Each structure stands twice: as C-alpha cells, then as structure tokens.
C-alpha cells in the first residue's frame, strides 16, 4: 500500500518528517470501544498517527500525599494496560499509536501535550463535557464521539466542530437592517431640515456627532450580523494563538512565586 511505502521512505530519509496525529482523550483510565474504533477508522482514512491519552482528574482534596501517590500509581497501571490494548488494536490496522498518562486538569493536560508534541491536528474526546473542557484551553479543532447515536449507515454521529454550532443570526440581521433603513430614511427624507440644524455649529455640533454614533450602532450591528449570515466569520484559530501566548506565560510565573517566599520566610526569623 502507498502508506507503507510512505513509511519506508520516511525511515530511510535522513530527516524524518513528523507525521500528523489525532489526539484521543479517554474517560479517566478507560477508552470506550466506540472511541477506539472511531479513532482507528479516522486515522486509517486520513493516514494519521494516533496519540492516546488518559488523564487522571478525580483526586480528592483531603487525600494525603502518600495515598495520592498510591492512587496515581494504580491509575497509571490500569491506564497503561488499556493503552497497550489500544496500541495492539491500532497495530492491526497498521496505525502507529503512542500512549501517555497525565494527571490534573483535562484542558491543561491537552494544552501541554499540544505544545510539546508536533503536528497534533485535532482532538477527539469521549463526551461533550470533556470536549467543552478541552475547547477552553486549545486552539485546534475538538470533536466528541456522542454515544448511542447511530446513523442509517451504521456510522457514528459526530458532534460538530467547535465554532460551527453557532446559529445564523437571521432575526438580528433583519431587525438591525430594518432599524438602519429606517434611520437612513428618516435623515434623507428630511435632509433640508437636518442640514439646516446640523450645520449651525456651536452646541449644535452634538447633533451630527450623536447621529453618527446612533448610525454606527445600528448599521455596525447590521453589517456584522450580515457577514456572519453570509458565512464570513473570523477564523478563531489564528487569533487565539496570538493572544493566548502571553496569558499562558504569565500563569507559569504565578505558580513559582509561593515557593520562593516559603524559602525566604524561615530564614528571616533566624
């Protein structure tokens, strides 16, 4: 198959090009059969690799450090076993699969992975809830496999891509459109009177200034909605990357601070 040939070529070429990957996020230490089948099927069609991840999130606040470490070990063991099964199944379809286990917040774990590993193209999650959690942190597309929703052909119905669920603002466009037309009609049918007062100068200056504000509100909303109605909408990907970088950097700095003061305080008492 061409895919195999491709692999062989990559292995022989001096500089191995990173392959595209699907990140599959499990439900705690498990992967349901649906998501495993779905991910393998998808990877096969797109000729991508799979990166499977289990994230241990449900940790009790009160648990002691030793019991937490114990729980983590147990989680890791179970998850690794599931990961091995996933890998084996992927290997049957000749798909390369890696498995990782992480702890903590689901969104942060995904974000960390995306920053650390190259060419993760999109994320597939088990449920809508975990999809929402991931979406908040990352800029690449996130899908969820909605259980028990078979199509006529026997395939899975997949939740829409992030950003596509927004409904078209038909009502708002018409509403602001009517308002804008009414405002224009009002000014241009009385243009003589309007011009007479608006050009008087002095305090009458407030009239044209206020008018443009009102028009920019009505017409601005109308034109904004009109473009999204026509399907011209911002691509969130590019912009988010620009703006989220400094925020992410700052978060790290905040984490370091308490540790510093903890070292300094006892020293001062001596």
């Amino acid at each position, binding site marked *: 198959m061409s895919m195999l040939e491709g692999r062989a070529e990559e292995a022989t070429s001096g500089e191995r090009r990173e392959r595209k990957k699907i990140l599959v996020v499990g439900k705690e230490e498990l992967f349901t059969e649906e998501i495993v089948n779905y991910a393998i*099927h*998808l990877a096969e*069609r*797109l000729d991508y690799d799979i990166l499977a991840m289990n994230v241990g999130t449900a940790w009790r606040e009160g648990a002691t450090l030793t019991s937490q470490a114990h729980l983590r070990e147990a989680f890791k063991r179970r998850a690794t076993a599931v990961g091995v099964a996933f890998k084996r199944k992927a290997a049957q379809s000749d798909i390369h699969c890696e498995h990782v286990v992480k702890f903590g917040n689901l969104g942060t774990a995904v974000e960390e992975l995306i920053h650390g590993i190259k060419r993760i193209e*999109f994320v597939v999650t088990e449920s809508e809830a975990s999809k929402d959690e991931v979406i908040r942190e990352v800029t690449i*597309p996130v899908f969820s496999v909605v259980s028990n929703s078979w199509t006529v052909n026997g*395939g*899975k119905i*997949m939740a829409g*891509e992030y950003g596509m669920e927004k409904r078209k603002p038909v009502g708002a466009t018409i509403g602001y459109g009517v308002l804008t037309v009414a405002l*224009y009609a009002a*000014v*241009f049918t009385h*243009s003589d009177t*309007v*011009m007479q007062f*608006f*050009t*008087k*100068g*002095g305090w*009458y*200056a*407030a*009239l*044209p*200034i206020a*008018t*443009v*504000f009102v*028009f*920019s509100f009505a*017409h*601005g909303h109308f*034109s*904004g909605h*009109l*473009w999204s109605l026509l399907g*011209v*909408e*911002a*691509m*969130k990907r*590019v*912009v*988010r990357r*620009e*703006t989220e*970088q*400094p925020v992410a950097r700052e978060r790290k700095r905040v984490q370091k601070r308490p540790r510093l003061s903890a070292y300094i305080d006892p020293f001062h008492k001596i």
Partner: protein
Amino acid sequence: MHDVAHEVVNFIDLNAFSIIFLFIVGFIGGLVSGFIGSGGAFVLTPGMMSLGVPGTVAVASNMCHKFPKSLVGAFKRFKYGQVDIKLGLVMAASAAVGVQIGIRFQQYVLEKWGQAGSDLYVSLSFVAVLVIVGGYVFYDAWKISKSGGEEKVSSLAKKLQSLKIPPMIHFKTANVTISLWFTVPVGLATGLLAATIAVGGFVGVPGMIYLVGVGGLIASATELVIAFVMGFGGSVNWAMHGMVDIRLVLIILGGSLLGVQLGAIGTTYVKEHMIKIVMGTIMLIVAVSRAMAVPKYLNQLGITHMDVGTVDFLTKASFALMCLGLAVGATIILSSMWKASRAAARLQESYGQAV
C-alpha cells in the same frame, strides 16, 4: 472662522452617481482600514472634492466618518484580542499633541509661501515619508514571506526595549515593555503626519512595529483606537464650525461599516505579514500618485513652466492612481481571504469524508 464658514460653504446636491461613488469608495476604504488600521481618507477627501464638495467640508466629513468606522473596527478586532487599548490611548494622547504642532507648522508654511507652497510642502513630505517608510515596510514583508512567514521583532525595537529609562511602561496585549520616552515620539510623529497629510496611520503603524516592537496584527488594530480618538476630537471641532455634511458622512459610513468589519475579519484569515504587504503596496502606489501632483504646485509657484495640458493630465492620473492603490490593497485582502477560506473548506471536507 465661524461666520466666514457660513458665508462660503455651499453644500452640494446629491445625485445617484455621487451616492454610488461615495458608497463604494467608503466600502473599499473601510475594508483597507479594517485590515491595516488606516486608509481610505487619501482617496475620499480628493474624491469628494472632485464631486464639487468644498475642501474644508470634504476634510470635515471625512473625519466625521472616520471615527465611527474606527470605533466599529476597533471593537471587532478587540473581540479577537488584537487591540492594546493602553498603547492606543498613550499613542493617541501624544498624537493629539503632534497634531497641534503640525497645524501650527502648517499655518507657518501657509503664511510664508501661500497656498501653493503649502500644497507643495504637503505633497513633498507625503512622497518622502511614503517612499521611505512604505519602501521599508514592503521590503520587510517581502523578506518575511521569503523566509516562510515568521515575523520577528526588529533589532532596533529590541534595543529600544532594552534601554530602561524610567518611566517604563508595559503593554499587556502587545506584550511589550518599553520606556515612555520611545513611545511618545512615535505618537507625536503620527499626529504630525496626520495634521500634514491626513493619514497618520502610515507612520503610526510602522512606528509601533519597528520602534516599539509590536506585532503587525496588534499594531494595525491599535491604530484604529488612535484613529477613533483623533477622529472624534477633530470631528467635534469641525462640527462646531458647522462644516460636517452629515449626508455625505452617512453615505460613506453605509459602505465603510460593511468594509471595516470585513477587513477586521480578514486579519484572522491571513498570516501576519500580509498586513505589511498590503500596507507597503498601498503606500508606494500613493507615493507615486502624490509625486505626480508635484508639478502642478511647482507651476503655481512659478518654479517650473510646464504645459497646462500636461499638468492637468498628471493631476487626473494622480487621482486615478490613488484609487488604484486602494483597489489593489482591497484586491490583495479579498484574494488572500478567499484563498484562506478555500484551504479551510478543504480541510473541513477531509474531516467530513472521514466520518
């Protein structure tokens, strides 16, 4: 000035041609300024004058359409996280001072050399600034696109940022910490140029990029804040003299609010250096256009004695070229948006097939 204005000013009668012309130029100008932060004014003002609108009314009406347009554009781009309000306000405050200096200097030139001398001064500074700054912006954009589209902070900006002369100021969205002593001159120059050639953004945006070290995306979005503040102040001033023709303003606004939103959306489709490409291209074309207007003023001053027909032709060609500059900018924006959305659609399709 108040009383004089009332006697002199004649507001034009509108016809279908002028309405359509203003709407379309408004739209294209809006598109460009939504994308690069400024633009449109250099075509609108002479465009209105060619329709028979008196110069002062054209300038006043243009300014009065500029600030709501910038407001809508800035708001839209703020939602995309591209606007640094603090930087915008610092720049606007210093630009306001720059405008006052610019106006004083302009008056001095007018007194000394008369109208033609003043026009010549405006055109020459226009050409000089646009060729130098526009040329550099274009060269930089070309260099970036050749090296794969990665933008780097200029070494001059890095050096200026490393000089810790208090008061230091941090701009969060732009992610830049720089001394106020370097930010204010950029603002002053923006205002000075705005008072002289009416398009401050042509120096403000490159200033923010190459001197302060802000990215092209954030610089162009922040320019909209500056344009709003400056335009608002200017418009109040003009409106108090009764110079604003609200009908012209509303027609242009009709087109430009559609355009500015499209331009703002466009910035999220393209790589950051596209802003520089569009800006550099427009600046260079406009520079040639203004250079073509120079012989007219030289003739008026009696320095050269060119044929009247030739001068007339050059003046018309200058305006046509200015329109062309705007059109070329708009075409680059729309075609790169089109390409990017096609690429995204193809990606979507491949996901769709996979299901």
